[in-house]
């Protein structure tokens, strides 16, 4: 019973912060880690994040659209996808 609450709690926060694509969350964390490492060796790496964000966005969109093509090749790709409960509408 207690485990169930913990699981629900963890799932809520995962869904709330990470949402329906973990790639973006993981990419942002990796990019931030990379920036802090570069700063430690004296490189002012402000340029890294804007570039990383556009690449992450492209990867995430590519994953979503190709998943849709594979799933339902003869109908509108994402029209009936289930929306996560707490991500933006």
């Amino acid at each position, binding site marked *: 019973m207690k485990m169930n609450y913990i699981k629900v709690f963890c799932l809520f926060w995962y869904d709330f912060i990470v949402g329906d694509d973990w790639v973006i969350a993981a990419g942002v964390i990796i990019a*931030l880690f990379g920036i802090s490492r570069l700063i430690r060796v004296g490189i002012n790496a*402000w340029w890294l*994040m804007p570039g990383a*964000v*556009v690449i*992450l*966005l492209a990867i995430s*969109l590519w994953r979503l659209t190709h998943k849709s093509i594979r799933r339902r090749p003869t109908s*509108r790709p*994402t029209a009936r996808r289930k929306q996560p409960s707490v991500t933006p509408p």
Partner: protein
Amino acid sequence: MTPSEWILLLSTFLACAVEAVEALTVILAVGATRGWRAPLLASAAASVALILIVAAFGPQLSRLPIDALRIVVGGVLLIFGLGWLRKAILRASGWKALRDEAALYAAEIEHARERAKSADFKMDWYGFTLAFKAVFLEGLEVAFIVLTFGTSAHSIPLATVGAVLAIVLVGIAGAIVHRPLSRVPENTMKFAVGLMLSSFGIFWSVEGAGAQWPGADLSILGIIAFLTLGSLALVAILRRTYERQTAARVLSKAE
């Protein structure tokens, strides 16, 4: 007032106005897309939290790890913003159906009436969290500005006056522009919100990681421009893919 006191008042006013505009952008974005109740309550809650923190820490406030806070708030804001942007790009390129805004508006009004009647009104925690984080972080930065400027010029009360003036004026500006904002088409608004949240997220998280932005706060405009161009390019590419897919489906059906 002496010239140095005028300079203190003006510099605190300008610095705090920049921070207040950043918080206001997030409040307006959340309010215009998800309703005003959650962001307004979040702003009030964040203000109370800030007052308590300032009262508890006082001048010791500058020892709080603001960079760690910037990384966390910026990082989470960026992840949220990219979620909005991704869905707006999918809608703009045709991969996700655009919603019937007139029907949705009517349904929303009906739903709001129902919710107002029912006792178990549910808070929009997503909108609340977004607005709370922005107001809290920016409010903390305003407190730092007042403390650092005020302490170095030996007049914290005058620095506080500059900050309060900035917050009040930016608040009035927000109250004026919030109505025209609600007339913007839904997906355009969500696209803009995604861009704003992601841009501020990039700015704060990178600043928190220790990097210096060229042009300081002005670089936010550059980030917004860069992200807008990148997103529009992605819309164009995805639209072409979608049209190709649709044409292929039509052909396969005809055969």
